[in-house]
């Protein structure tokens, strides 16, 4: 767990948060809707990037094996 927290991959977390905040806030003017957009954007980005990472890890494992 500690290894994961200190890995270079963790640099993506603040970027996802910042991108979700800015993207979410440019979608509406009402705070509740902005918050909903932020959460949805963050989830989408996490799932999308996580999916890509899983594919790459799977490919790496397949090619090495």
């Amino acid at each position: 767990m500690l290894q994961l927290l200190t890995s270079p991959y963790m640099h993506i977390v603040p970027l996802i948060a910042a991108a979700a905040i800015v993207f979410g806030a440019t979608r509406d003017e009402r705070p509740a809707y902005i918050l909903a957009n932020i959460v949805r954007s963050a989830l989408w980005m996490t799932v999308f990037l996580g999916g890509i990472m899983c594919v790459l890890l799977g490919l790496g494992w397949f090619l090495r094996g």
Partner: protein
Amino acid sequence: MVFFESPKGTVRVELGNRYLAALYAWLLPGAGHFYQGRYAKGLLFSLTILTVYFVGFWLGDGRVVYASFKQNDVRWQFFVQCLVGAPTFPAIVQATAGSENAPPLWIRNYRYPPNQAGRPAFSRIEDPAEVERLGAAAIPDGFMAAPYGEVTLSEPDVLSAWHAELGHLFDIATLYTFVAGLLNLLVIYDAFAGPGMLFEGDEEDEENPSDDAETTAKTAEPKDAATSPKSGESKD
């Protein structure tokens, strides 16, 4: 005044002089929204984008934001980084001041030239006496300046020394400052044209009655507003 309609109601946004707002938004993230009186969003954008930018700047030891158009070092990332506005202006000054081989302004430190016995090429000089001894042969590192001297693909140079010192952080820091620029592009557009309201978001939040009240209160002249979420504009 611009109206934005969605199935949940109409939102009014006072954009003022939208060209001026976009210019301010570029000069300093969030400043365009402050000009328009959208203080909360302005503060949110300002804090978020400047934090990402300066964290990237710090991770890259202040070296990843520079403008260079030299052979083998065309810094195309700078075109996106400079969307953050004023914080990148020193790099523009460094790129435009002086001739091509002139030393940069605001020198931070010096490096050993190649072929110095016992010294790795382009390593940092820590002792000021060494800088005096080397004189003009010492290689300067300027604040937000491009790597001094030629950049080659086969020999060590200042840029390769930066990469060696920072490791993967050079690329991560570049990414942070790059993303900050991209995000400010969204903010500039928001200051220029208002929010890009999403219909699908409204469907998910139908159970929030407080927002309904808020948006209904703001629905003063919704019938004149255009039906598209981006085009209801009136002159008042």
